[in-house]
C-alpha cells in the first residue's frame, strides 16, 4: 500500500477524476446520492438505511478508483449531495446567457 493511496486528499482527487472521465460513474454517483437524505434530523444521527446507502456509495467509489478508499463520511456525503443533486451551489444565468467559468 503506497502513501498516496492512504492520502485522503489524493483519494478525493482520484474520485474527482473518475467522475469527470466516466459518465457512467457520474450517473451512478448522482443516483446513489439522490437516495441519501437531504439532511439528518436527530442531531446528525445517521439512519440505518442512509448508512447502507453510504456504504454502497463508498464501495462503488473504491471500485472506480481502483484502490483503497477511506470512505466519505456523513458530512461529505451531504456536501456532495447538495452540489451534485440539489445543484445548490450552481446559479444558472441563462437568457442573454453568460458563463461564469
Amino acid at each position, binding site marked *: 500500500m503506497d502513501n498516496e493511496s492512504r492520502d485522503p486528499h489524493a483519494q478525493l482527487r482520484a474520485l474527482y477524476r473518475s467522475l*469527470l472521465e466516466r459518465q457512467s460513474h457520474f450517473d451512478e454517483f448522482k443516483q446513489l446520492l439522490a437516495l441519501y437524505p437531504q439532511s439528518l434530523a436527530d442531531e446528525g444521527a445517521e439512519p440505518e438505511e442512509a448508512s447502507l446507502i453510504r456504504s454502497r456509495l463508498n464501495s462503488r467509489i473504491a471500485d472506480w478508483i481502483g484502490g483503497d478508499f477511506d470512505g466519505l463520511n456523513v458530512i461529505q456525503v451531504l*456536501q456532495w449531495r447538495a452540489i451534485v443533486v440539489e445543484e445548490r451551489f450552481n446559479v444558472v444565468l441563462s437568457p442573454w446567457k*453568460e*458563463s*461564469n467559468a
Partner: protein
Amino acid sequence: MLLRQELDELYAAFCETLPQPLRVGARELPYRLGMAISPDVPWSQVLGHEVTFAAPALFAEAMPQIAPAKVRDAVLAHSLAVIDGFGTDRIEDRQIPVSAEICDILAEIRRARDRALTRVAGPAGNQGLDFAQAQREMLDAIHDEHRIMAEHQSVDFAHYERLARGKTAIGLPASIALARSAGWSASECGAIAKTLSSVWLGMQYHDDVIDWEDDFKRDSAWAIVLAGHVSSAELAPGMTDYDSMRKLVFESGILARMLERSFRHFRAARKRAEALGTRELAGWARTKENYAMLLAQEERRNSGYAVRLHALGPWVLQVLS
C-alpha cells in the same frame, strides 16, 4: 473590481432618477428577474464578466484621448442595454411573470440607455446607430428561437450563429458610439463589432454546452437542435425523453463541436482585440480561448465532460482548492 464598483454606482444613480414607486423594484431588479438569490444582490455580483457589462470601458483602453465622462456614459448605455436584454429575454421566455412594474422599469431603463448613448455620440453622431434596431433584432431572434424549439426543428450552425448575433445585437451600439466619438475609422468600428460578436458567440456556445441538460428541461436545448442537424441517427417520432436525447447529443459529438466553435470565436476576438490595442480584453479572450480548447479536447475524449466539470466545480472550490 473598479468596473464592478462603477457598474453598481451607475445603476444606483440611475435608480435615484426614477419615480419613487419604481425605485425599490429597480434596485431589486436582479432578484425580481430571478437572477439573484436575494433582493440585495447588485448587478456586479450577477454579471460574471466585465466585457458583458462594461465592454466600452475595455475598448477605451485604446482611446487615450477620450474623456472619462464619455466612457462612463458609454458603460451606462451598454450596461442598461444588457440589463434590458436580460429582462426582455426572461419575460419573452416566460421565466418570470410579467408585471406592470417590471415593464415600467425596463421602459425607464431603455430611455436612460438611449439618453446615455446620445451623450456619447452627440445628437447627430449616432446616425444608423441606435438601440431600437438592435432591440428589434433581439426580439426577432428570441421569437425565432421559440419557434424552433416549439417545433422541435433542427438547424445548422449558421442559423444558430445568426440567431445568437441577433440576441446580442444590443451589446454593440455603445462601444461603437464611443469609438466614433474617439475618431476611430469605420473599419476600426467594424472591428469592434466583430470582436464583440465573437465574444458573445464564444460565450453563447460555451453556455449552451454546459447548460444543455437544464435547457432540455425547459425544452430549449440548442445542443439537441444542432445535434439533430449533424447526426445521421434517425429518431423515432415522439422520442424526446432524456435518455434518447442524451444518446443523440453524445453520439453526434455536438458538444465538442460547439466547444471548438467557442474556441475559434474567442481566438478571433483575441486577435482583433490585440490588433485594436485593447490588451485587457485580449488577455481575457486568450484565457477563454485556452479554456475552450481544453474543454473541446476533453469533451472529444469523454462525452459529457464539460457538463460534469461544471457540475463538480463548486466541490472543487470547496474541497480540492
